[in-house]
């Protein structure tokens, strides 16, 4: 249970996952932020005004999947590293998952990394399709990983180091 071990449950996640139809349309943000804390940089960061908090800053964020265009600006803004962008729209069996990353070394585009789930368990090796810096002051990287669609809702981190050069 989240409050005992830090791992969100299926029920926790069910409340924030966009519908399958929406997921199939293109990249969309998922806020894995389940506690009422005084925090709102995600709301301020979204240029589409897709994230809202009602009635106030202590509410959990809600993403309007119809407004979200998957631009990832909220991913780097979130101090809790709790926002991920998932893109299930590609025709093949691969999905793209963007995660925030704050470790060194940062893997490069094209490298293979070992993906981890929410419990830190290894999920396999996946290609980094994009590694974007959040900038000098923000310092959070956004890594986009190509993962099998069935793992798109599992992979949420990578193992630091030991990256392999891809084909």
């Amino acid at each position, binding site marked *: 249970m*989240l409050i005992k071990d830090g791992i969100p449950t299926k029920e926790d996640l069910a409340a924030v996952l966009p519908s399958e139809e929406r997921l199939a349309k293109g990249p969309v943000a998922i806020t894995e932020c389940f506690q009422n804390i005084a925090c709102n940089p995600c709301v301020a960061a979204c240029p589409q005004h897709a994230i809202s908090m009602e009635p*106030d*800053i202590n509410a959990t964020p809600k993403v309007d999947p119809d407004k979200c265009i998957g631009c990832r600006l909220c991913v780097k803004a*979130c101090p*809790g590293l709790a926002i991920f962008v998932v893109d299930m729209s590609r025709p093949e069996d691969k999905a793209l998952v963007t995660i925030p990353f704050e470790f060194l070394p940062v893997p490069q585009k094209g490298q293979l990394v070992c993906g981890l*789930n929410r419990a830190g368990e290894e999920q396999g090796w996946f290609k980094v399709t994009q590694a974007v810096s959040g900038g000098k002051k923000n310092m959070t990287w956004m890594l986009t990983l190509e993962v099998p669609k069935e793992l798109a809702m599992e992979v949420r981190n990578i193992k630091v180091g030991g990256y392999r050069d891809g084909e």
Partner: protein
Amino acid sequence: MIRDVEVLVIGGGPAGLCAAQAAAGAGAHVLILERDDVPGGQLVKQTHKFFGSERQYAGDRGIFIGQMLVEEMTNHPNVEIMTDTTVLGIYEDGVVTALKDEQHLKFRPKKIIVATGAAEKFLTFPNNDLPGIYGAGAVQTLMNVGGVKPADKVIMVGAGNIGLIVSYQMLQAGVDVVCVVEAAPNIGGFLVHASKLRRAGVPICTGWTVKEAYGDGKLEGVVLCRLDEKWQPIEGTEIKVACDTLCLAVGLTPLAELCWQAGCHMEFIRELSGHVPVTDENLMTSVEGIYAAGDVSGIEEASSAMVEGRLAGYAVAVSLGYDVERAQKEVEAARAELVELRSGPMGGKIRAGLAKVAEKRGGASC
């Protein structure tokens, strides 16, 4: 020689810097005394992004918030910062004494804002004096200020925000964090911090504690055990875990000695984590002209410490007659901001603590 000072701020952390920013912004002359060699307080080691809203610089890293405030105060014509200067006492005649370079200094301020922050609590268990057992704050300073890898293999005690954040920062420094042990049945810190540790593979063990430490001349490991609902060790659950460092993040307590000494009305308020000065809605203590802001008046957060500092700074400006109309508006805005920051479930403890403070004073809480 006694130096006359208009506003004396004791402590250059987020509360003290924001108090100076407010008072000087309204026109007062401010002297900040800071015992450390650099101002910034806890912010100098907070490499993580902060929570809160834009007004409290949320999303920015603590260290950059500190740098920004320090730079602004260093360049402000009305503000002077003296570092390496430890305030020793506030006396009845209003004289403040301090130590700098083995020299005794004396000041006679018109107003004092005490913003001395907090001290770390420790934990008692057999062999807790073995080298290798540190407070989380010390480890964070070694790592993020000194640039030193503080350990190879560490166990963290305490799953409050400090324990969770320092564990994560140790991972960033390449330390093997074996686990986070928490005696309470639930994680006390923000769950987003817990989740990011957990998905990096660090188990968070709630309902566990440290029974004892062992090692020959230095720490070699600890014995952990499970606790029942009444916080009693469950026999037979002991496990030995090897580690070279044990890090304690079991809470902070207000550093309020100066307020005691100044004769402020003090009360023990559990929710505020210790003895705190009883303050009014302007954050003035029971002693006329002495204010308290930040962790010294109750352990909370940098976001609220900054707003409290601002509130006290503007209240002082009003009492000195500087830019009264605008300063008074800022006082009220700061009060509203604090109410908002504390309005959620995580603010429940603080609200309860402040209500007790108000009761002791016999008035409304701010």
